[in-house]
């Protein structure tokens, strides 16, 4: 078969077929369209202001490694005027996170960005290894998810950044849309497709890869020879997400636009006011100051369960009530340091455009 020419430049030999458009393009045109689409997403959503301090949530995996590389390239090329940082959370998983953090440390050198690593051990006094040793492998993803979310915010506050960007890609978002539909979680369905979320008491978070296909992220990393880590977490992965993911990949194989179509469907759901009203009002956790929909935030509740040897009780609503009824003092119990938003949050400047 004679080599096909690139559909964009008509000069070089095509090396890949874009899942989004079916176009067959060459290596250099691929780099150009990949980066330019992310740039356009950033501009259209007006994600950043000149002078913003932005933390890239870095796990050492493909998405965040490519995100760090592209954020640096775009910041230089288009003069966004951002100060970029790498922020990694060390969950304390031997044989998994310790290896992936080595990748992040190499990225720090390669991309010349300051790196902050915050560990569960330092923040909560528990590593995931210790948590799994106590509670087993069944509900450990619940702990890890709650702890990671809060740890990212706290790491960002320590770096005094205005904004956290994460490597969530179009496939991840489509998966989350499907999961929220399957669970009937309509309130979350509206929120999960937002490119940027910001509550009053949380640090702004956004997803510059919202419209970027996983296939293209992996191809980009391959052709750029980027250094990333790819191993499954050694503790039981989120089985429900796993099913959504396999289903989505099957759909994509039949029709590549399925991913973007599902995101658009999620965006088109309008959440009615009465559904919104059933969402609990946010307050701050009386123990640690982090935003919460109850007196105690989820992390404090889970931590108390661990400390009192009643870890699994903290996962269900009924169990949590029991915990509260039998409340004892927090003396002799590890608690989370008090949370404060970074000082520079209210600063106003004009959006880059």
């Amino acid at each position: 078969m004679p080599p096909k020419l690139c559909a964009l430049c008509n000069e070089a030999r095509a090396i890949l077929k874009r899942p989004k458009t079916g176009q067959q393009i060459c290596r250099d045109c691929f780099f150009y369209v990949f980066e330019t689409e992310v740039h356009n997403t950033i501009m259209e959503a007006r994600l950043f202001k000149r002078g913003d301090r932005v933390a890239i949530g870095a796990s050492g995996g493909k998405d965040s490694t490519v995100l760090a590389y592209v954020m640096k390239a775009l910041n230089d090329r288009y003069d966004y005027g951002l100060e970029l940082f790498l922020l990694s959370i060390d969950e304390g998983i031997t044989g998994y996170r310790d290896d992936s953090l080595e990748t992040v440390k190499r990225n720090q050198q390669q991309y010349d960005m300051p790196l902050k690593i915050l560990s569960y051990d330092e923040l909560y006094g528990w590593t995931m290894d210790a948590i799994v040793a106590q509670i087993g492998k069944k509900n450990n993803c619940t702990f890890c998810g709650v702890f990671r979310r809060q740890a990212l915010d706290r790491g960002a506050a320590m770096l005094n950044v205005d904004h956290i960007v994460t490597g969530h890609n179009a496939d991840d978002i489509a998966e989350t849309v499907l999961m929220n539909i399957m669970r009937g979680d309509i309130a979350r369905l509206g929120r999960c497709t937002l490119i940027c979320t910001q509550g009053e008491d949380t640090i702004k978070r956004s997803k510059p890869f919202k419209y970027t296909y996983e296939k293209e992220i992996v191809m980009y990393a391959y052709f750029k020879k980027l250094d990333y880590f790819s191993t499954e977490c050694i503790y039981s992965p989120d089985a429900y997400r796993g099913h959504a993911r396999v289903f989505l990949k099957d759909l994509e194989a039949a029709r590549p636009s399925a991913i973007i179509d599902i995101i658009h469907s999620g965006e088109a759901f309008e959440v009615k006011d009465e559904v919104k009203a059933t969402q609990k009002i946010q307050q701050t956790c009386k123990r640690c100051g982090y935003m919460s929909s109850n007196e105690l935030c989820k992390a404090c509740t889970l931590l108390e369960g661990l400390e009192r040897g009643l870890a699994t009780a903290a996962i269900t609503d009924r169990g949590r009530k029991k915990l509260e009824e039998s409340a004892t003092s927090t003396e002799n119990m590890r608690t989370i340091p008090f949370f404060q938003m970074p000082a520079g949050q209210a600063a106003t400047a004009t959006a880059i455009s």
Partner: protein
Amino acid sequence: MSLNISVVFQGGLDNLFSKKPSHKLTIPATSDGKPANLTYLIFWLRDNLLSEREELFIQDGTVRPGILVLVNEVEGSGDGTDWELLGEGDYELKSGDEIIFISTLHGG
């Protein structure tokens, strides 16, 4: 007649192949009188090299959705080409080709 080819596994797929990321192989040049193609190679890998969990590599007669395949043709530029441009499973192998399998399914 046989072909000498290289096979590379990335993105965690090496775990299914004795944790070894790259392999030099000699495979038959024909099967049932037809030249060996990528589909033939995928099944040859399953039968001769796969060390565990076949369902994570093969599904419905081809690689599992989420696995990317690139072909670094012996006379090519050295970067590899998405197999979707080369006829996917029908691509006929040549001695000296390097085939890269990358899983997109792991980690973020």
